[in-house]
């Protein structure tokens, strides 16, 4: 019996099976001659007929795969029987071979188009999601408008186009503009432009009514839009508005060079998604800038002033608010310079009950009231009584403690009149390092109808200092053991080392010790003012100018 040949019944049975298979099937011999196709295969490959050579009538990829398989050359993915794949007409197929012992090959073709499309869509969707997530991270990092525009331009120029230009809403014809080409550094500036000169620009800049992004003819783009590196090579331009949460947010202009594919509708939709994020980040940054400028303006009056030498008396002040992110609080100080060297200057330091902004607002009122009462500063008691009445009559229910110190320079030193109103008495450090407490006491203001106080007269020789401080210093908790109060004895000890120091060095020393004592712990507002008799006059540009040449 001849067993070398397959029984004719075999292939016939097989044929019967696959002839009606719903998948296209092609049978070819070892040499590449087509033996047979089923109906489904004839449908998609009408030009292939039994007896044809695969390489003449079938798609090249199938003929090549057949040849490789017959010669035993492994395909790219390593296995000779792994599926090949390629286009047939509009669709994409995977071809799975099965071989019989004679070398005939049955090619089973599986329509793969939809899976590939889905995979392609998934990949590009993943890329976009990753880019948008990345863009959001980058855009969220800064609340600075310029920086935000920079990041937007960079991201757009590297991911969406060859170059990106952002035109921000401006004042009149002047608009801030940020542009970036590829990976180059961002350039920033202001342009004076006629927005109507570029189609779509003025509508997009107005922000309302909403406008879609639009393509414009590169030839109609004004010169200032095209970055220098792109001159003469721009192939397509898209203008996309940056949505700005109720306010115009500016415009993102994307440019692609002529040798790059033009924007597809898809790319443009994607650009819009990016623009939405960039617009949101930019409007948050703009709002922050606006709020912070309002805060700065309002805060200016509440911030402690910077002190310096006045009429031969040295003043220095230091302040630390209780909250880590706060700048103002319930402690305050001020120095009101005397009109001339014979007039007393008035230093005030005090503490309003409470913390934070609300307390700070009240300190502002007290400071204003005291300022208005300055002409009466030669009588501390009267000044305090008037302040007390003003506080009792205001709707604030808070009270305050404070110290008034009037200082005038005499020939040998500084003469002080110091009055405490319910406040810790100032400490005086003498030239020899002795520390004394000023003998003054009195009632706090803002509680009782009648208040009393006693004023102390103090003379400060050269190098001696009178320190006004709030209880935030003495009551600071911390230290090496963690829960001790800084206390007045430590303050006195520290002050004892401050004889002969300039006022700002005394303030810095006290502030530093208290801050180190507290460490990272919580603390109350802390304020210090030092009044010192300096060695010589102040260093000013004037006195320095007159120093002249030294080595005469």
């Amino acid at each position, binding site marked *: 019996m001849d067993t070398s040949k397959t029984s004719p019944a075999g292939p016939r049975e097989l044929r019967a099976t696959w002839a009606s298979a719903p998948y296209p099937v092609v049978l070819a011999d070892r040499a590449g001659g087509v033996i047979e196709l089923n109906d489904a295969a004839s449908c998609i490959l009408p030009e292939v007929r039994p007896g044809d050579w695969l390489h003449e009538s079938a798609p090249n990829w199938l003929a090549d795969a057949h040849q490789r398989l017959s010669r035993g050359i492994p395909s790219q993915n390593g296995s000779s029987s792994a599926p090949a794949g390629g286009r047939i007409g509009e669709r994409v197929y995977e071809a799975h071979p099965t071989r019989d012992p004679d070398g005939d090959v049955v090619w089973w073709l599986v329509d793969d188009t939809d899976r590939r499309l889905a995979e392609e869509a998934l990949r590009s969707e993943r890329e976009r999601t990753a880019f948008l997530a990345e863009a959001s991270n980058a855009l969220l990092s800064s609340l*600075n408008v310029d920086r935000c525009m920079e990041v937007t331009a960079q991201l757009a120029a590297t991911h969406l186009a060859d170059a990106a230009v952002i035109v921000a809403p401006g004042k009149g014809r002047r608009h801030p503009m940020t542009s970036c080409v590829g990976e180059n550094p961002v350039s920033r500036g202001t342009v004076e432009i006629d927005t109507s000169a570029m189609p779509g620009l003025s509508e997009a800049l107005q922000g309302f009514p909403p406008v879609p992004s639009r393509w414009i003819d590169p030839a109609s783009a004004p010169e200032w839009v095209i970055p220098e590196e792109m001159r003469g090579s721009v192939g397509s331009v898209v203008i996309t508005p940056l949505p700005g949460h109720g306010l115009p947010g500016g415009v993102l202009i994307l440019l692609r060079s002529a040798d790059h594919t033009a924007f597809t509708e898809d790319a443009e939709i994607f650009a819009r998604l990016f623009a939405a994020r960039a617009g949101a980040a930019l409007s948050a940054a703009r709002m922050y800038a606006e709020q912070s400028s309002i805060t700065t303006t309002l805060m200016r009056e509440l911030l402690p002033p910077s002190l310096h030498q006045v009429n031969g008396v040295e003043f220095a002040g230091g302040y630390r608010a209780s909250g*880590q992110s706060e700048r103002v609080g319930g402690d305050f100080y001020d120095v009101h310079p005397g009109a001339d060297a014979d007039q007393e200057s008035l230093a005030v330091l005090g503490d309003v009950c409470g913390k934070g902004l609300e307390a700070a607002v009240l300190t502002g009122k007290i400071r204003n009231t005291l300022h208005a009462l300055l002409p009466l500063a030669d009588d501390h008691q009267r000044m305090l009584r008037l302040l007390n009445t003003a506080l009792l009559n205001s709707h604030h229910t808070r009270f305050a403690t404070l110290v008034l110190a009037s200082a005038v320079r005499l020939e040998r030193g500084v003469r002080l009149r110091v009055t405490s109103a319910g406040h810790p008495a100032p400490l005086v450090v003498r030239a020899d390092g002795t520390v004394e407490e000023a003998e003054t006491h009195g009632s706090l203001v803002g509680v009782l109808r009648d208040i009393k106080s006693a004023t102390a007269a103090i003379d400060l020789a050269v190098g001696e200092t009178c320190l006004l401080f709030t209880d935030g210093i003495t009551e600071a908790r911390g230290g090496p053991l963690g829960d001790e109060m800084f206390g007045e004895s430590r303050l006195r000890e520290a002050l004892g080392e401050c004889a002969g*120091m300039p006022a700002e*060095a005394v303030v810095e*020393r006290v502030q530093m010790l208290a801050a180190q004592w507290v460490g990272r712990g919580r603390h109350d507002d802390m304020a210090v003012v030092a009044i010192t008799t300096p060695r010589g006059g102040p260093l000013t540009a004037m006195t320095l100018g007159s120093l002249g*040449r030294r080595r005469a």
Partner: protein
Amino acid sequence: MTVSTSLRPDQRLIRTCREELWSALRDGDEHAAATAVFAGLEDGVPAEAVLMEVIAPSQARVGQEWAANRMTVAQEHVATAINERVIAALAHHPAGRVEPRHARVAVACVEGEWHALPARLLSEVLRLRGWRVDFLGAHVPTPHLIAHLHRTGPEAVLLSASIPTHLPTAHAAITACMAAGVPVLAGGAAFGADGRYARSLGASDWAADAATVAELLAAGLPRPDPTAMHHPIEDLPHLADQEYTMIAQSRSRLVKETLAELEERFLPMREYSSRQRRHTAEDIAHVADYLATALYVDDQELFTAFIGWTAGILTARGVPARSLALTLDVLDSQLKDFPRARALLERAGHGLRPDPHIPVPGNGKPA
């Protein structure tokens, strides 16, 4: 008045100027200090040389003199205050007036850092070289620094720290600035003589002096990658063992227990005055802080160097350094479950014992 802008100042002039400034600082004489500096300027020493070669070395000398106990705390503060005033006056001198032509930068000291003079000198040098400088001063809380960055959008933050125990805070500040998209250039003694901690804490770069800062700025610092979601722990993976966290949190208890144990083992302490006792507690707290910092940056050298320096300071003040070695021993016995901390303590202790310069008085009585 003639003011030279020559780049090669006469070294002899600079030396004279430096000596005169130094003697004025010693005497606490502000006017003599100003006279010395301004005469130097008018003799042709450029303003930058006045800052870096006259004022900066004199300030460094103040620190050395204090460490050697030849200057009191008060004298140190007076000298610093005078230098600050001289620098401020210098900015108003015609030789120190420069129109800004470069971008804006912010100079700040880390929160807790009170040594502002190095940062101040840097600010002035940069201003002289045409940068727009916002000097935020000493002890800048990180939230204030970040608010400033959002408000002004500078090209870079120049962050200064002198004392190594501020490194953990510096790390927080560096991370926050970089996350806000602003590069950070770190400088100051705290970051190590070779800037190693600046790098391990993730700063963009480190500079040893003001001139290098100016060069790096001129070359342009790369913006931190705004898309990188960086977590601070990635800089310092060793923090995962929590040794730093636990020691930093239980610092007060550690100090209390060490103090009590020390009292048992170090007999002279029983005769300490309350003031001496307080100073001892502060010293122990310092050791604990440096230990925690060395754990934070994972660096033996930081701790060993501090212990060596402290031994020198104590010796200069006639305090027996034996108490320091004992302190390390006691801490070691308390930190049984902290292998990294114990390794630091043991090695620092080795460095301490064989030092022949540290006298151990017979009766151990502190001076």
